[in-house]
């Protein structure tokens, strides 16, 4: 299994940047957010599959270990859309 460092590289190569304030990897164009916990706890294949996953246009998709509530999704979507 690859280390978290190489998983980070996979995310960065796919256009994700780390949000220091929200402890998450974010791609505004793809509208996807990966928490550091999710990245640490899941293998490379899961990260790659999530990066490639098709999501409804215009909606943010959150890859968290525990699904965030609607209120948290709204807040993070607003922050990352600015």
């Amino acid at each position, binding site marked *: 299994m690859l280390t978290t460092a190489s998983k980070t590289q996979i995310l960065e190569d796919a256009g994700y940047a780390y949000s220091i*304030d*929200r402890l998450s990897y974010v791609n505004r164009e793809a509208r996807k957010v990966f928490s550091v916990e999710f990245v640490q706890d899941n293998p490379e294949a899961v990260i790659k599959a999530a990066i490639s996953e098709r999501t409804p246009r215009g909606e943010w998709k959150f890859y968290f270990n525990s699904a965030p509530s609607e209120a948290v999704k709204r807040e993070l979507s607003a922050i990352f859309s600015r």
Partner: protein
Amino acid sequence: MSERTVDDRLREEYFALLPDARRVREELEAEVRHCLLPLSSALDRYEKIEITSRIKDCESALGALRRRQEGATFDPDQAESYSLKSLNDLAGVRVLAFPRSRWYEANDALRRHETFASWASDPVRSDDRSTELAFKYHGVCSRNVKPRAELQIVPMLIGLFWEVEHSAIYKPSPHLKGALATQEMRQRTNDVLQAIESFEAEFERLVRRDPRTS
């Protein structure tokens, strides 16, 4: 009028806890100083024991609690479930010791003290987890159980690195603490601590062998 946010509620809790946190800090520092007095008064000229204490400031406390949530975001629908009382280090005392033999002695003395004997141990370990780089304990004081407190017993140079890091980076910009959550930053931090540990160990070895200090 706009609704109170989770942050507003926690700020209110912070200032309600502050008098207790101050008392805990004072009690803790007094107990640590008293416990280490025999050791501090027997130090050689080149040896040092320094004791400092602090209370986490309001925004740092909120930030620490927020970073515990996945996505570092409070859920406004769960506002009542967040409390600063769950932080282990609202009040804290740090003991810096040099050389390492004094660090171990300080740790042994404090661990035997009745207040700290039952505190939970949460040491900072090397990357391979084989070595303790700093001792950390948390628990409650005898006279005041509301805010939990942390006791750190740290090799001098590692403690000074933490102080420089804090005052240069995190004190002016507390949100930058989030950088430390990445595996890469944890690895780099561990590299620094292990380099300092190695420096200190070699320095101590030479000092011990020097005919003027041995």
